[in-house]
């Protein structure tokens, strides 16, 4: 029941907000805080009761939904979904705190925001393909509105592009789900994973491609990444955080949960493709980020680069690589989430994101600068911070399996250092631009949503075992399952 309770938090919150009058802004915000806060508390309790060494699905809920088609309301968590659920409830709460920057149409905003959180949680919790698809799509609609109404710049265009790209991908996935169902008569991911290796190779390859399209667009994998910079740049700050922090992980999670276990032979056959695309993502993302002058766009392209490590680690099919990929997803959510919050803080004050317009802010806003330096260093993979661990493990795993792809990928790490240091230099160092003489430093309220991320990034960098032991048994079982057949 605890997982349904987790899903119910944002849903009930949304319904309460819909019932409130639209002028009761404080009440609406309060309900949203409570709903996301409760979800966070339940998530932490889940972690307490979770037994990492047990590789089976835990906290299962299995209720018949559409018996004629063998569809179940089937929820559960294991070592693969647990970190994602934690990431979602954490960022869901922090981005809700950061949503005080929203100044209009509060009722609609928070209702859609909570619907979005429910969709994301449902995606990570469901173990029935039909249910998974429903939640996967439920995420799209609120995201479209959140970017389209509260965004900036070319928000309508970006929101629509996001919608169409992702829907096109999910439709390919829908065909895959249907083909799978008529072959096996079930939507149960666990049962499918057990029978997956009996499918012939051609079928596995075909369906792997169908699901790949759905997940690749979400991750996003080159060449399907073009929606991402637009959507990230034009989304309001809290939504950028969710988009980068959680939504991209839905694609990565799909590979771990569906594409790899159900089509093991297909996954192995396309290992070279995954590794090569991962390499392209890493290097291409880094170099494009290097060329950006818009702060937010730069962070967006750095996401493309960072998500490449997930692919590389996945393709390696080694415990190091898989652990690295999974950890990279978690870290990227924290670090990029923090980066977007910081970009938002600066934009709130300066109303520009043009990197060349800044300079010398280091002395003017010391606390903000410290934060920015911290997250930039985490992003470029400084040892001692969590970003390093994930990338390092991915590269170690990848090197054994895909040597030259990994060697090229290392270039991306250098690129990351280049563009992140460029940001620090252009924003914080140099002579102070007179325009920013009276720029105010970061407020305590804004720190509230950033400091928790900072602490976790530091803690995981110093003691990564805490996360690794959560996911390692499940990942080892997955590797044995994929490679064993």
């Amino acid at each position, binding site marked *: 029941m605890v997982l349904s309770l987790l899903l119910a938090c944002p849903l009930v919150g949304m319904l309460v907000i819909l019932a409130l009058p639209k002028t009761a802004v404080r009440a609406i915000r309060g309900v949203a805080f409570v709903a996301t806060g409760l979800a966070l508390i339940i998530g932490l309790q889940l972690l307490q009761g979770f037994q990492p060494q047990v590789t089976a699905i835990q906290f299962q809920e299995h209720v018949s939904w*559409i*018996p*004629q088609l063998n569809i179940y309301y089937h929820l559960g968590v294991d070592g693969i979904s647990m970190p994602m659920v934690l990431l979602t409830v954490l960022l869901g709460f922090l981005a809700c705190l950061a949503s005080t920057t929203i100044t209009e149409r509060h009722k*609609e905003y928070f209702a859609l925001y909570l619907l979005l959180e429910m969709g994301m949680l449902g995606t990570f919790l469901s173990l029935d393909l039909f249910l998974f698809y429903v939640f996967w799509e439920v995420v799209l609609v609120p995201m*479209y*509105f959140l970017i389209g109404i509260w965004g900036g710049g070319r928000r309508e265009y970006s929101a629509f592009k996001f919608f169409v790209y992702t829907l096109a991908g999910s439709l390919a996935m*829908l065909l895959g789900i*249907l083909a799978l169902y008529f072959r096996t008569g079930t939507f149960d991911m666990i049962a499918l994973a057990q029978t997956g290796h009996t499918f012939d190779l051609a079928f596995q390859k075909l369906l792997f491609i169908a699901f790949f399209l759905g997940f690749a667009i979400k991750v996003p994998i080159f060449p399907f990444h073009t929606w991402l910079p637009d959507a990230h740049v034009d989304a309001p700050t809290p939504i950028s955080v969710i988009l980068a922090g959680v939504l991209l992980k839905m694609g990565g999670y799909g590979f771990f949960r569906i594409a790899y276990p159900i089509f093991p032979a297909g996954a192995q056959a396309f290992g070279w493709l995954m590794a090569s695309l991962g390499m392209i993502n890493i290097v291409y993302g880094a170099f494009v980020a290097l060329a950006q002058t818009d702060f937010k766009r730069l962070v967006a392209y750095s996401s493309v680069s960072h998500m490449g490590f997930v692919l590389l680690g996945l393709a390696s099919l080694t415990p190091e690589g898989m652990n690295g990929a999974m950890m990279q997803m978690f870290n990227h959510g924290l670090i990029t989430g923090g980066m977007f919050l910081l970009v938002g803080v600066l934009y709130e004050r300066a109303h520009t994101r043009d990197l060349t317009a800044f300079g010398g802010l280091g002395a003017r806003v010391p606390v903000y600068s410290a934060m920015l330096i911290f997250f930039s260093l985490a992003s470029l993979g400084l040892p001692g911070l969590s970003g390093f661990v994930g990338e390092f493990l991915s590269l170690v795993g990848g090197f054994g399996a895909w040597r030259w792809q990994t060697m090229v990928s290392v270039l991306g790490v250098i690129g990351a250092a280049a563009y992140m240091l460029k940001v620090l230099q252009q924003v914080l160092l140099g002579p102070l631009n007179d325009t920013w003489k009276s720029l105010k430093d970061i407020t305590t309220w804004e720190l509230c949503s950033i400091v928790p991320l900072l602490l976790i990034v530091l803690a995981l960098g110093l003691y990564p075992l805490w996360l690794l032991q959560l996911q390692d048994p499940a990942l080892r079982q997955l590797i044995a399952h994929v490679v064993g057949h």
Partner: protein
Amino acid sequence: MSVLLAESLQAWWPEILLSAGALATIIAGVWAKRPGPAALTAWITLAASAAALLSAPVPPASATFFGLILCDPFSLAFRWLALGVTAVVVLLIMGSPEVPQQLRGEYLGIVLLVAVGLMLMSEATHLLVAYVSMELVSLSGYVLVGLLDDTRSAEAALKYLLFGALASGIMLFGMSLLFGLTGQLAFGDIHRAVAALDASKTAALLVAISLMLAGLAFKISMVPFHMWTPDAYEGAPIPVTALLSVGPKAAGLALLVRFMTALGPAWPSVGPLMLGLTVLTMTFGNLVALVQTNVKRLLAYSTIGQVGYLLIGFAVHSRLGLEALVVYLVAYLFMNLGVFACVIAVVHDTGSESLEAFRGLARRAPIVACCCALFLLSLAGMPPLLGFFGKFLLFGSAIKAHLPVLAFAGVINSAIALYYYVNIIRLMYLVPAVQTRALIPAFPLRLALVICAVGTLLLGLFPNTLLSLVGAVTSVNLL
């Protein structure tokens, strides 16, 4: 003989009540010169007919009305659909200021007559009844389209009439060829005769089938017989457009299914043709809808696209396909009529049929806009709405029948269609309103909106009830 007649009448109470009620409604409208009594009569008629349908006896073993019609579970589903469409359309007419007060009685009466025709179409197992019922629907349709006192309505009615008469003629010609080939008129006899038909007459048979298909294709706006649709939809009063976009499509598909069951032995040669036309219909409808700026024309092309999806269920020629077809028709009823309810509210308020009239609707009428977005997303096939579930079954039936090309076409079309459906949502939510005055639709419209929204959402979340009802419908012999 008299036992048979008594049994027939017993099974046919809903239609009898509807026919009598339709005439009474027209008389009440003409007599009272105000819409109140006519509307009351219409509602009583609908309620009585629904009650009769609910208590309709288990289908009699013998063929009702001497084998002319068949009151089987399959037709029962379509009779309920016809009643549902009619009930919502009556609400739309009552809520639409476009239909003049003194004409409402006639409008309501003719709409009820259309319902009788729709029911008959789904029950027909005889070429004669099939033709007569289609003509009943068509003739009532011409009148409904042209009843308004303006040139656009008259032009639309004339176009509709000319195309319709041509299609009827072609179909009649096809029927006469079929009769010449087989010497039979009842569907069951035709089935046996076609199965025993000489191989040398196959070409002639195909010509006959194609000609008959042309007539039905006209009714359901299948490409290439769709030309009348946008013009008639644009000129007709919006409630009539709503009726035409759902009612005849459902009944036409029912007749098509029964028709092709009768001509079953010829399916191998007709199948590929249907496959091509299905893909063509949805692609054409969706592509042309992309460039529309008039909301009624847009919905006309969207209807053609939706008919394309529906035809998947027919083209796969399987039980699952039939099931999917019926489920999607139920979904289509709710979502399409719901959209039309929103269109009536907007067009009446702004006086404009352009898409721009939807600008900023979310500010002016949050609930209407929210419902409208729900219907549009359902039409686009977003879960967890009923439209998604219907599409899921349709595409599934295509994959199960090893016709992945249909599923591919459906998926690509869904992505295309998203553009114009979301465009309306964009106008409602993302674009500021021209005027900020609140928009409050009339009570019947609000009721229609709520009914359609609840149907779209709840049946989408819990489709198991619907599915078990539909399962019973499609498991029967259609002849």
